[in-house]
């Protein structure tokens, strides 16, 4: 029983780490550009399939390094051409556009790579379990968590200590003032979008190694990421992290006792949070309205 519980908590933490990576990217874009990026799951799929396509030539490590920046460049192009004209309009429009984009990406990957799942080969030493007692902790899972932690740490360094990051945070609070200070807001939004998509691409590569690839995989990860943001508190990146880990562990633990409810429990958590603390766990006053 202890082992089963431990197994599911570990599982939950790992899934939670995924949600964190996805939700941080979504959250960045939502906070600065007031855009719900429905195509975020689509960009995850793009990242995964790029890794799949280039792994035979440059190996897994190469793909891990190259695929996320490539995804970010695609994201940048999409932002320039499609999303930029919509800033300043009702957020409904960017929502609908990215929603349509998600359709196109899903169907496009199915058209190019076929509907069957594709495996991405990971280095053999990562596929080994650590020990017989803890058969469920493979090297790859630990590695995934480590990569997520590094990515999150780098993101926080970026936001805290670099000029770009400080401007992003300032823009989140008051974009007009930032624009009045002579900062190129369009550029800021583009770079911020690219950072968000980079994180989606990275989750795509990591997910590909663990779960294999399917054109529909992004959709399944999108909704928990939304909930991570709402539970953690809109506008707060630490909140988003906390929310992601919490719902991951909660659904992992529910899987032990009531498997059918493991999906539903995260919605219950969201309802409870909205009822008791509408701004989310770490959300700031007024950010939710």
């Amino acid at each position, binding site marked *: 029983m202890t082992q089963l519980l431990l197994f599911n908590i570990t599982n939950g933490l790992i899934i939670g780490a995924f949600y964190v990576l996805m939700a941080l990217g979504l959250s960045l874009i939502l906070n600065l550009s007031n855009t*719900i990026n429905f195509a975020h799951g689509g960009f995850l799929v793009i990242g995964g399939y790029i890794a799949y396509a280039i792994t035979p030539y440059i190996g897994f490590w190469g793909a891990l390094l190259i695929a996320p920046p490539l995804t970010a460049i695609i994201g940048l192009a999409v932002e320039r051409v499609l999303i930029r004209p919509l800033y300043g309009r009702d957020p409904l429009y960017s929502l609908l556009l990215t929603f349509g984009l998600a359709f196109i990406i899903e169907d496009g990957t199915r058209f190019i790579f076929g509907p069957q799942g594709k495996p991405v080969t990971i280095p053999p030493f990562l596929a080994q379990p650590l020990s017989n007692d803890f058969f469920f902790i493979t090297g790859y899972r630990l590695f995934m968590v480590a990569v997520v932690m590094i990515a999150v740490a780098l993101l926080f360094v970026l936001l805290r200590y670099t000029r770009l990051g400080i401007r992003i945070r300032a823009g989140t609070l008051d974009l007009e003032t930032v624009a009045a200070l002579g900062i190129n807001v369009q550029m800021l939004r583009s770079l911020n979008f690219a950072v968000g998509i980079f994180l989606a691409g990275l989750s795509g590569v990591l997910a590909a190694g663990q779960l294999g690839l399917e054109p529909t995989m992004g959709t399944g990860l999108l909704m928990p990421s939304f909930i991570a943001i709402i539970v953690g508190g809109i506008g707060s990146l630490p909140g988003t992290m906390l929310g992601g880990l919490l719902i991951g562990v909660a659904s992992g633990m529910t899987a032990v006792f009531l498997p059918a409810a493991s999906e*539903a429990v995260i919605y219950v958590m969201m309802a409870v949070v909205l009822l008791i603390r509408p701004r989310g766990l770490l959300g700031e006053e007024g950010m939710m309205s």
Partner: protein
Amino acid sequence: MSAEQTRKLIVLAAIWATLVLAPYWMVPLGGYTALATRVLVLGLAAMSVNFLLGFTGVLSFGHAAYFGLGAYGAGLTLKFLAPSTPLALVAGMLLGGVCGAILGTLIVRRRGVYFAMVTIAFGQVFYYIAFQWSSLTGGDDGLRGFSRQPIDFGLFKLDILSDANNFYFFVLFCFALVVAAMGFILRSPFGRTMIAIRENERRSRFLGIPVERHIWIAFTLSCFFMGFAGALYALVNNFADPRGLHYSQSGDFVMMAVMGGMRSFWGPLLGAAVFVVLQDYLSSITVNWMSFVGLLFVLVVLFFPRGLLGFIQRSKA
């Protein structure tokens, strides 16, 4: 009677004439009556979404949930309770509306994109319930094993099961009832208040309007309409599908409203007609119809954000 009023009356008469005569002009044009019925039902759903989006100005991206609840409500009633079509419609409407009313209390405190996010997430709850509770709902396969029943008027029975035209007129009658209710509400002082909130929420608040309560009522009403449309949809297909609850269905409804014209009462019906016919046609000629629907979303947002009716009105002005 002013010229403006006369013009409105003529337009209205033209809309209803088109709808009433649909089975007769659609078939020669290469359509089929069941397609017209689907347009009517999905158009009603899009108009219900627009009741909230276009006239109160808040975006719900999870309205498919209440549509699907209506469908399951009607289906389960027919299957387990009683073989009565009117009862099924009422049950579906109540299920969608009551669930909307309860969740609405949690949802209305949010605004803008956050309102949209919370509605999406709550909508998905029902998708998972329908998906997981297979002993009741049939799970992924959907709810089967029921069919719409003849309507008993005492003196005679109206066969709506095998006669496609009869069923179309029955749906049109239901459609007219709900549309009349919507029009009546929008003309009432309450409807005017909704529009005031859409135009300037802060000012409405300063005028002493309880904005939250109004949005909640509008949300709940729209969920009732949605549940009714969903119940009709279950009758159309004799089937209820968990995908009818999914947020991608909500996206389709919002798209219909936007494509037709959010600011006009009849726009969503036009949007639904274009959307349904296009989807029907595309899925018959290509397996990649999803890409084309996605492309449609992108193009409408970039080039026709005011919708077809908005476009026509602007080019006239």
